[in-house]
């Protein structure tokens, strides 16, 4: 479904990602693990058209995304659920969700997707008229995920969905990611929490200082001595 081949991304003269190659097949849940600053988020942003490629090629469903704009990538069916400031704080919950469907013209389907999203996140329906900035951190994260779903993506990119959340919410977030995949959306997730990420994924890639140095199924990666030593505290 998604092929990333030899992708290099630079900030000025510094290459944050070097010749990264990975693929995601339809229906898979693939994770990208690695330490802070390894280039995980950068690679995700490059896939979603928020950063230009210095070299390499990205293909989605056989079509080249080249240096496509964020709009084109979204239209092709890839949604990005970013890290950090994830919502439009002064817009209401409902308006945030509408922004997720910003490029869609099929109003009937958008309305039914909205009902589905509210069914998945009842809290958001209760707070639909509230400004998103007044939600708790966990609720904001749910809203960010819900908003990304509103574009009805074929492939969903999650950037550190557990970052800055309380432990119980971290677990809940991963459950939701798994649920989204079960409903048929392919997932590529960047996650620092290697144990959780490897436990739930089909396959995983390990990124170190901008290069992909390992990849394999979740179990293979969990059994890898280097990963155990450096990322699993074993």
């Amino acid at each position, binding site marked *: 479904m998604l092929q990333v081949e030899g992708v290099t991304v630079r900030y000025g003269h510094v290459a944050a990602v070097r010749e990264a190659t990975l693929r995601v097949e339809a229906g898979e849940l693939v994770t990208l693990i690695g330490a802070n600053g390894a280039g995980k988020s950068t690679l995700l942003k490059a896939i979603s058209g928020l950063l230009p490629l210095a070299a390499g090629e990205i293909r989605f469903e056989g079509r080249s995304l080249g240096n496509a704009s964020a709009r084109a990538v979204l*239209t092709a069916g890839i949604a*990005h659920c*970013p890290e950090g400031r994830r919502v*439009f704080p002064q*817009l209401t919950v409902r308006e945030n969700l509408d*922004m*997720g469907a*910003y490029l869609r013209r099929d109003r009937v389907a958008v309305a039914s997707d909205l009902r589905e999203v509210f069914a998945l996140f009842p809290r958001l329906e209760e707070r639909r008229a509230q400004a998103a900035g007044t939600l708790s951190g966990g609720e904001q994260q749910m809203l960010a995920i819900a908003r990304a779903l509103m574009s009805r993506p074929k492939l969903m990119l999650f950037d550190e969905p557990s970052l800055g959340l309380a432990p119980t919410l971290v677990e809940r977030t991963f459950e939701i990611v798994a649920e989204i995949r079960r409903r048929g959306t392919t997932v590529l997730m960047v996650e620092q929490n290697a144990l959780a990420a490897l436990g739930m994924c089909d396959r995983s890639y390990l990124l170190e200082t901008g290069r992909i140095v390992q990849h394999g199924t979740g179990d293979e990666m969990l059994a890898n001595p280097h990963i155990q030593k450096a990322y699993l505290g074993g």
Partner: protein
Amino acid sequence: MSARIYPWLFVAFLASVPLWIGNQYFLYILTSAGIFIIAAISLNLLLGFTGQLSLGHVAFFGIGAYVAALSTLGFDLEFGSARFVFPRQPVWVGFFAAILVAGGFGLLIGKLAFRVRGAYFVIVTISFAQVMRMIALNWVDLTEGPMALNNIPPLSLWIPGEGVVGFFKKEYNYYLVLVLAVLSYLLVQRIVRSRVGRAMIALRENEPLALSVGVDVTRYLVVATVVSAGMAGMAGALYTHYIRIVDPDVFLFIYTVTMVIMVVTGGKGTLAGPVVGGFIFGALPELLREVASPEVQWILYGIAMIAIVFFLPQGIVPALAARFAARRGPGAKPEPEARAP
């Protein structure tokens, strides 16, 4: 009774003012405040809803003023041996030309400046206003420089039963400004509540996120600049035909500052903000003139400004909206547009 009716009651009240106000001087103050309110409404679209600070906004106002004046007066220019004569045009041709030309400059500035946003936009707009002032001062063949363009005819309109009437009377100008201010308000309201407006607010709030949900950020910033510039140009044209003289001082920085003050104290990013701020800071200096000496006037003006910024940092309208919502109870939905960053 729906809350929607209050703004219209306010408009009806304003419409009744010439009927009972005895002092024509107050009508003059309200009319010039109204012209500045239109300019402030236009600035608010940029500053309040897209979050871009145009510190050269008066440039669009001044361009509108000069275009309206020059088209109604006509002009001729000599380029070496070639002579270009521009004949006098009807006032409304000049009026619409002012909107179009100012909007065109908005397109130019928007395209240039938004390649590099934020601080650079501020610098580009300031420089633009200064360059316009220099042109108005030094291109004497066209603008008469500091001697000013004068004898500009007032706007005129065909009124049933009276034929074509020149707007020499204060009431006519007052009503004209009132109607155009209401139209400007409605236009901005329409934009802000549309999909385009939602996108503008989204990019003010979180630009990377707006990009990632597919908002074409640059395009909407340019659209906002064009509409805003055209509206400011219209205010400039009104000013020209009302005051009937225009000199390079219309490009003074202080007028931009006045507009920014109106927007910020009233509540940037709210529809009513520039109207409230415009009434206070458009009329206050003139009204104070009645009761205080010039030094005291400006001191009071400054104190009023500091007090508002200090006690109501969001502006007057959001502060009132919050108080109103609190009184109606926690379930009350705040005015959807009452959101200042």
